[in-house]
């Protein structure tokens, strides 16, 4: 019977009992629950990794203007700006996360990780991590397995959907996946990985999903950049054995609780937050041109 990814504590226990690493537990899960063999799984991940790298490249080289015009080649501007705020590496990280996410907003091909709204975070994090630390592809694929395990638990204990749990559920989960992946690739142990995940989620809690005009553009694209940054800051903290104090499972419970009590207008309905601002509403009026028949509410 494979481990079913219901908690981080049990994941650690299972790995220790079987004397295998965290990502091997994920491999075992996919094999036993979905009947895929190791070769198929690694091939699927390799394909996802190629699409991620392609998305980064596409966003940094091709014309990226969305139907609404709100997304207009931002990643390239950031990538080419002469003054790095911290370092060239940081500038690259931010522009790569923006790039992959812009491809998504412009109806290009991406990997939902865990969702399309958060599809810039893992590519930005992993491409930059590989470049700086010369991580080989095999290790990146193992880190992706580990990241998938993190998301499986978050899906079950909280949510990965903005419409159900707000932006924290999407970009928060992606950042947690990225942070865990970084710490794993840099040789961190289970506690260091879980601390990084917990700290990442602590930094992302409460984020609402308030897309202007209902489009996955503003603020989604820039939040992919900030989530990539938080994945890195939390990895730096977790790697140094700084404790999250609140255990990762409890942090995820908190995320679920916050998501459940979040008002509907903050869950991808385009009714609250930035979507409800004067400018946000003016943009909605401008870009959503087709007449939409709104029927009266159905009686429940």
């Amino acid at each position, binding site marked *: 019977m494979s481990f079913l990814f219901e908690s981080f504590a049990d994941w650690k226990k299972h790995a220790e009992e079987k004397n295998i690493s965290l990502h091997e537990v994920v491999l075992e899960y996919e094999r036993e629950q979905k009947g895929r063999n190791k070769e198929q799984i690694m091939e699927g991940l390799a394909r996802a990794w190629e699409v991620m790298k392609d998305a980064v490249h596409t966003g940094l080289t091709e014309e990226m203007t969305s139907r609404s015009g709100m997304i207009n080649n931002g990643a390239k501007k950031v990538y080419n700006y002469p003054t790095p705020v911290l370092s060239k590496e940081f500038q690259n990280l931010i522009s790569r996360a923006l790039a992959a996410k812009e491809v998504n*907003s412009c109806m290009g091909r991406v990997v*939902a990780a865990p969702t399309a*709204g958060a599809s810039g975070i893992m590519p930005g994090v992993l491409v930059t991590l590989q470049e700086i630390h010369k991580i080989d592809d095999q290790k990146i694929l193992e880190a992706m397995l580990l990241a998938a395990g993190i998301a499986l638990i978050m899906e079950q204990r909280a949510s*990965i959907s903005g419409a159900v749990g707000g932006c924290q559920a999407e970009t928060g989960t992606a950042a947690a996946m990225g942070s865990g992946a970084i710490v794993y690739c840099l040789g961190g142990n289970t506690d260091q990985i879980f601390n990084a995940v917990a700290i990442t989620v602590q930094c992302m809690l409460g984020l609402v999903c308030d897309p202007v005009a209902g489009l*996955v553009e503003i603020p989604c694209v820039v939040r992919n950049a900030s989530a990539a940054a938080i994945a890195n800051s939390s990895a730096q903290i977790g790697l140094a054995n700084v404790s999250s104090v609140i255990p990762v499972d409890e942090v995820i419970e908190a995320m679920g609780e916050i998501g459940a009590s979040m008002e509907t207008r903050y*869950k991808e309905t385009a009714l609250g937050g930035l979507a409800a601002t004067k400018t946000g509403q003016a943009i909605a009026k401008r870009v959503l041109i087709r007449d939409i028949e*709104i029927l009266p509410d159905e009686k429940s």
Partner: protein
Amino acid sequence: MASTYSQIMAEKSSIFDMIGPVMIGPSSSHTAGVVRIARAALKLLGDIPEEAEITFYNSFARTYEGHSSDRAVIGGLMDFKTDDKRIKNSLDLAGEFGLSYKFKSVGNASTMHPNTIRLVLKKGEKQIEVLGESKGGGIINIAEVNGFKADFTANLHTLIIFADDVKGSIAFIANILAHDECNIATMSVSRKGKNDLACQVIEMDSGIKGVTLAYLESLSWVKQIIYIPDIDK
């Protein structure tokens, strides 16, 4: 109720639901999930429809155009997969595929999942009505088929049997499947009324043999069988 929605999911997610699908943007729930709901509906109808009436509910109602759910649903109905670059132009391509469509919105259906879509599809004499829910990350649940409760994820091999509500029919069918080495993952049964038409939805870990399917179809009390092997292939 975040945790409630995920905990009632019939089937465990795959790691490729977490890192995947590879898809055309912009939204996994509003684009990829919608493509998959439409593909499931297409398989239920058995053919690309001539007419499609699509109703978007709740979160979908206001945002379906912005997230290009309109292009996603039409692309799915024309058998495009989630990573097909033609999705971007699906509304322009619908004419070539002989598909005419109409969209409607219902803003606040409080008893339904936040991202719900209803499809009424017609092709010649055939008609089917499907209620689908997009649960995030491209994961879907087909909640109803022709007014019957269905609840399947379309990730597995799904068998939908419309049959007379006769005694022992469930055990009989389960037995036949067992002889065909089919392991049943989930099963749901609903009916219009006592001794009336019943709908059995069976999700299986592996495919069913053609001969078994033909046998089930030959039974006098079985009215219709729809078999959906894998909507992503």
